[in-house]
């Protein structure tokens, strides 16, 4: 019999459940399922996003699937609405996902507005969120870094607000830390950066700003060594969180504040 896990220290709380890891990862863009699994395991992530697509008809039924590599019993699957450009599409997709995952209600909502930039259509996002929440879903919502939209999404009942750091897949990091800080300061639900993380420091900065977690996919999958980057991201999220909890020193333009004593100087 397995020894019970000790309760997580400083757990991530989303929608009434707690998680040990503050790093959430996507499962796309990997070389193959083996690499997907290796990277996800190295990242320490418990929550993984998946897309919902037509199953391949006529494909070899013994061919491995994502679920073989990442069993839903081992990970919390977070279905997304990637590829949806309307509230209706997103709602339909997540209802199918709920059926697919045995009534599981924690979902990632994203409604895109432009196929080139993949920037979110926040109007359609709000519409979809309202319907989904009424239908019993726990919505983690991908959105722009507009603090007013973030406030509205929280007010209608989203369980997490997930503003972009920069465009999906761009790896540009956090382009507007000020907006992110505004969102974090006001939010009473977890704020997770989702989209645009490129390397470890981006994830650490997100956590230092006070994010509850970080969601990323491309930063790991398209690194030269994805498994190594997954490890780096795990450490970065932990380091950033610790630094946030430790409370950083103040910034000053100049300090004349040496760390060494000013007396007893050799004459």
């Amino acid at each position: 019999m397995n020894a019970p896990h000790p309760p997580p220290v400083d757990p991530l709380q989303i929608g009434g459940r707690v998680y040990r890891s503050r790093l959430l990862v996507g499962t796309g863009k990997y070389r193959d399922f083996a690499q997907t699994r290796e990277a996800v395991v190295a990242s320490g992530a418990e929550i993984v996003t998946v897309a919902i697509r037509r199953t391949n008809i006529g494909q070899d039924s013994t061919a491995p699937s994502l679920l073989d590599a990442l069993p839903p019993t081992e990970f919390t699957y977070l279905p997304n609405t990637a590829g949806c450009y309307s509230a209706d599409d997103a709602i339909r997709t997540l209802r199918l996902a709920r059926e697919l995952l045995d009534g599981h209600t924690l979902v990632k909502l994203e409604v895109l507005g432009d196929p080139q930039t993949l920037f979110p259509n926040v109007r359609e996002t709000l519409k979809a969120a309202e319907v989904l929440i009424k239908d019993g879903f726990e919505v983690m919502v991908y959105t722009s870094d507009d603090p007013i939209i973030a406030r509205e999404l929280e007010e209608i009942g989203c369980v997490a607000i997930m503003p972009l750091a920069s465009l999906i897949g761009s790896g540009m990091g956090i382009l507007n830390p000020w907006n992110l800080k505004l969102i974090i300061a006001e939010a009473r639900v977890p704020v997770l950066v989702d989209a645009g993380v490129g390397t470890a420091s981006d994830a650490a900065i997100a956590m230092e700003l006070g994010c509850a977690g970080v969601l990323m996919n491309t930063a790991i999958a398209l690194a030269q060594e994805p498994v190594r980057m997954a490890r780096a991201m795990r450490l970065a999220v932990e380091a950033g969180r610790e630094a946030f909890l430790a409370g950083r020193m103040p910034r000053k333009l100049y300090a004349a504040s040496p760390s060494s004593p000013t007396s007893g100087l050799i004459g």
Partner: protein
Amino acid sequence: MLSIVVNGAPHFCRDERSTVADLLRELALTGKRVAVEMNGEIVPRSRYEASPLAAGDKLEIIAAVGGG
């Protein structure tokens, strides 16, 4: 011959009295984690055996795949 549409492509069921469960068996999807939508309505797993197909039915059979 039952003429239906599955995932956007025409499909023909030999048995006119096929059910959703029969279709999944035919497509070797029994026991796989999928969800089924028929003519815009989700068919719960518990109702696969009891859901007959009719000519012209449009089905979407979906699964979870890698994504961000």
